[in-house]
């Protein structure tokens, strides 16, 4: 791994002051460190944000669950408050990677990285999340821009993610048996008068499947999406699954999610 300067920031202000065009924020490091070791990313400065107290913790209000950006997956999966308010979010966190990854990896890191197969981006889309940064609030629908690309500007730091508590929800994934990343993951959330079907792993970026959302808003039953023939032309195709198989998996996992709601 190439050399860099390590900084531990005391607060968001210091963190963004240290940021430059050749720096990265470091939280759990579960993607940043392997990427640097493999030479896929190099930085002059790594700015550690996990000691910023304000960035960790979970708050539940009547309508929403707000999770600090540096909160670890294990904290989300073990939180009684999250389990009660949005059980599907807690089980999503429990299904990420392995225990050692969950002991280090953070929710802010996951969404800032926006891996096309990551779990958390689908939760943000399905649960109408608002991403709070040190500069502004961004709606999830406008946050995830493309493969590994977000609306974040250089030096902009995610501080918290605010999820809307749905009436019912479930996340179902067909994981890669080795990495536990989603080959396809579908997060179904039924809100008052609206249904979101957020899909991860299938395309280059997480998305809300409008066709299925509409069908489920009309009749919230797995029968209303049974046999739906999704367009696979933009779907990923690799050694793990072809585009057609992924299109079929999206429907299967969505049906499973609806049935589990």
């Amino acid at each position: 791994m190439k050399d860099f300067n390590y900084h531990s920031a005391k607060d968001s202000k210091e963190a963004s002051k240290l940021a430059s065009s050749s720096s990265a924020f470091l939280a759990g490091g579960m993607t940043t460190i392997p990427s640097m070791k493999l030479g896929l990313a190099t930085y002059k400065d790594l700015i550690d944000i996990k000691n910023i107290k304000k960035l960790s913790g979970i708050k539940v209000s009547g309508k929403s669950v707000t999770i600090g950006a540096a909160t670890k997956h294990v904290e989300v999966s073990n939180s009684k408050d999250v389990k009660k308010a949005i059980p599907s979010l807690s089980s999503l966190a429990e299904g990420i990677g392995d225990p050692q990854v969950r002991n280090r990896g953070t929710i802010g890191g996951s969404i800032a990285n926006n891996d096309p197969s990551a779990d958390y981006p689908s939760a943000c889309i399905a649960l109408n999340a608002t991403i709070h940064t040190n500069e502004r609030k961004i709606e999830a629908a406008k946050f995830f821009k493309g493969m590994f690309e977000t609306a974040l500007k250089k030096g902009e730091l995610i501080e918290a993610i605010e999820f809307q508590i749905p009436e019912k929800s479930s996340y179902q994934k067909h994981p890669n048996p080795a990495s536990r990343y989603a080959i396809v993951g579908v997060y179904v959330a039924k809100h008052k008068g609206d249904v979101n079907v957020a899909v991860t792993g299938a395309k280059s970026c997480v998305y809300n499947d409008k066709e299925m959302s509409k069908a489920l808003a009309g009749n919230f039953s797995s029968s209303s999406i049974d046999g739906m023939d999704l367009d696979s032309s933009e779907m990923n195709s690799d050694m793990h699954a072809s585009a057609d198989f992924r299109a079929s998996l999206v429907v299967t996992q969505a049906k499973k999610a609806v049935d589990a709601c």
Partner: protein
Amino acid sequence: MGKISLEVNGRKVEKEAPDNTLLSTFLREHLQLTGTHIGCDTSQCGACVVHVDGNSLKSCTALAADVNGSKVTTIEGLETNGKMHPMQEAFKKLHGLQCGFCTPGMVMSAVDLLQKNKKPSDTEIRDWLEGNICRCTGYQNIVAAVKEAATKM
């Protein structure tokens, strides 16, 4: 370069190390604690698992700098007065290893499991060991060893 201060296996250590030093490198090359193994070096195999402030992590995917000030336990820190830890005893008794390369990580991961779940089921043990890969045993005896250790810890 920065100063790394850790408590490793109950002993305070302080050493200068470059900022890009991984925790695994710090333990093996700066402290000569070579019981922590480097297998895949890509945070998948789990041979490098150690405990930091009571939780298991993969030391090949953590910087020494970013665990600065923590308490670290490695496989060398499990024995007491020359006596093996019950988990090590159980691995030995039930042949939970063959070549032994993955064993330090398996043992450290399994000890963390029993700290959090005193009586895990077979499924819970297998789920927990998701991040530890063994290419010899087929896992049966590892799971049996963890169950045996659970009766002794």
